[in-house]
């Protein structure tokens, strides 16, 4: 693999900035660190996964602390970053409980967010020179 920005450890501030960027736009942290191929794969696959979830009529859960499982679902949804914010802004992700694909859609949305959290942690490790 060619030498990249990631080959030397980044200062803490830069590492956290990379994490924030990686959370906001899936894959951008890796692209920033010179792992372009990985970054593009994350960007395309996680965004597509989120879009599939919306297309399958899944719901973006609200932050209801009274219902812990719903709140955890909301946290997982939020993990995907900008696509979540855009979907919320345009009113997508209301979910249709009676749709046969509803639970599949929820699974796609939640897993897209959780996978992006893993991608953010991986970007952090690379930025700190651990990988």
């Amino acid at each position: 693999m060619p030498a990249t920005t990631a080959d030397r450890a980044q200062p803490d501030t830069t590492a956290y900035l990379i994490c924030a960027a990686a959370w906001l736009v899936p894959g951008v942290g890796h692209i920033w660190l010179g792992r372009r191929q990985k970054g593009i794969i994350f960007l395309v696959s996680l965004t597509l996964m989120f879009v599939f979830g919306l297309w399958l009529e899944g719901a973006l859960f609200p932050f209801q602390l009274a219902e812990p499982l719903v709140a955890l679902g909301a946290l997982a949804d939020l993990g995907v970053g900008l696509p979540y914010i855009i979907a919320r802004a345009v009113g997508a992700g209301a979910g249709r409980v009676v749709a046969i694909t509803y639970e599949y859609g929820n699974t796609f949305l939640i897993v897209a967010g959780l996978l992006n959290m893993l991608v953010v942690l991986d970007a952090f490790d690379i930025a700190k020179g651990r990988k």
Partner: protein
Amino acid sequence: MVIFALFVSVVFATLMRDEPREQLTFAGRLFAGFIGAGVVIGWLLYPLPL
């Protein structure tokens, strides 16, 4: 299930392997594992009442 398995396999393989060839092999094995496990678990649940 197939589309879900495809996405998850691709992301995991990209996270866990560095070389494109290794990523492809690992993604293929993960994908086959997901589909195989899905079919086996599906058949195991088949006799259970709803």
